[in-house]
């Protein structure tokens, strides 16, 4: 049973931390391990999305999270944090990126700062598991499939059916309007002359077009609402 070290306060990480650290055995010992991980952390901060072997990604993710949380906690005027950033980021322009880009980006996050996905391994090929590690809020398109616009999902099927029904209802209303107008016209035609017949027909057409336009607009509004949902 040990007593917790109280000399320094740390923020809680929002990812699951492994119970033990990986050794990454190498000739240089523990320092070599840190140097290996340093390369990965530097690449992650530089490219914001990298594909690599799973164990290295899993280990480097914890270090990247810690580095960002330290930077958020202490800022760029704290000597120890600056030394940490100087050690962990091999390219020195990335120190500026850490404090000026990543800290403002992640300041108000309640979730982890990184994402890790399991990537498929090449077949036939080495049996190592692969992973994709990325910073949240990166500029690349998402790696996950676009589930919102999948037509076969049940909620999308239901929405489509609802739209169809709405459209049919609107068309029925328009048809009823035209019919009533025609009936009126036939009733008046006996009394008045047939000269304005063509004019009325064109006006009817334009009215139908307007109605259709309104339907398409309303369906667009529906789509937007779906996306928001």
């Amino acid at each position, binding site marked *: 049973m040990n*007593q*917790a070290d109280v000399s320094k306060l740390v923020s809680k990480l929002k990812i699951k931390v492994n119970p033990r650290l990986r050794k990454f055995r190498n000739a240089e010992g523990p320092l070599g391990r840190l140097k290996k991980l340093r390369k990965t952390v530097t690449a992650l901060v530089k490219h914001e999305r990298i594909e690599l072997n799973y164990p290295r990604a899993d280990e480097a993710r914890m270090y990247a999270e810690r*580095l960002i949380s330290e930077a958020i906690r202490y800022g760029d005027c704290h000597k120890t944090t600056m030394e940490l950033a100087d050690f962990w980021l091999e390219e020195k322009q990335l120190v500026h990126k850490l404090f000026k880009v990543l800290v403002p980006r992640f300041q108000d996050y309640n979730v982890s700062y990184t994402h890790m996905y399991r990537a498929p391994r090449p077949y036939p090929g080495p049996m190592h598991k692969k992973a994709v590690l990325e910073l949240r809020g990166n500029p690349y398109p998402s790696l996950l499939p676009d589930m919102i616009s999948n037509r076969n999902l049940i909620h999308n099927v239901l929405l489509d059916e609802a739209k169809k029904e709405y459209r049919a209802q609107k068309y029925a209303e328009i048809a009823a309007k035209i019919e009533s107008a025609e009936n009126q016209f036939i009733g008046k035609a006996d009394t008045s002359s047939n000269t304005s017949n063509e004019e009325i027909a064109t006006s009817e057409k334009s009215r139908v077009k307007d109605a259709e336009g309104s339907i398409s607009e309303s369906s667009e509004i529906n789509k937007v609402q779906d996306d928001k949902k």
Partner: protein
Amino acid sequence: MIVSTISRRCILRKQTSGILRVSSIRQLTSNTKSTKENIPTKFSLAEYRHVYPEFIPDPNVEFRNPIREKLERLDMLSRRAHIDIPEFYVGSILAVTSMDKHSPNKTNKFVGICIKREGCGLRAKFILRNVIDHQGVEVLYEMYDPVLSKIEVLRLEKRLDDELFYLRDALPEYSTFDSNMEPEIHPEGAPIPINPIKVKLKPRPWLERWERKDLKGIEQIDLPERFFIRAKELATPWEKYDMMKQYMKTIPEEEQTEIFAEIQQQLQQLELTRKKLKRKRTFIKPVKLA
């Protein structure tokens, strides 16, 4: 060289049965209800970790168990209601009065410097060291041991290092303390003084290789150059960059504040009762001369 350190373990007995524990919890909850009104805060939540480090659970994930930790905290508080366990640090001089089951109705008082604090929860321990009759004596006490009847801080101060095991290899005058020492008064709210004393070590052989430990509280060591070369080879200066290692040795701030917010009321209540008792004691105690 003769190094004779007697260490006596005061083993914690399983005294609290299930029924007792429930009653103690009930007592505590009733206490909190009655004392929720404004009690002046002595420490901020972040500072509690220095004063009560044993309330922070073990950072090793394998030993974590939130329910056990909570029950332990309640047991610790109920023990603290019976015995005043004061604030002290490694380097402070304490006087501990304890009882012995083999000699009933008698107490032993041991005065010494605290050279180590370890363990958490009910297993929190500290080691006191003194030189008695030219013989180094160390006693390991468990803080929540029911055998202890009184813990008194004679001098509240810190040293330059987190543990003072090097006193075992230092000259005896550095760990000799008068057993009739009077408690020194530490003004309320004043910062804890740090004693900058540099200890002179005896010549080798030692119990440990102190030249490899990066100690601040020892004088320049007189050793051949090869010892320092080897120490430099074995040094691990990159450990300060291993952020996960640090993370796994400590408990995150969020969890600490949660724990101390939970027990803050009870701790403050204990502080108040301690102050009252102190005042009483100063009036009653007569000093007999000659």
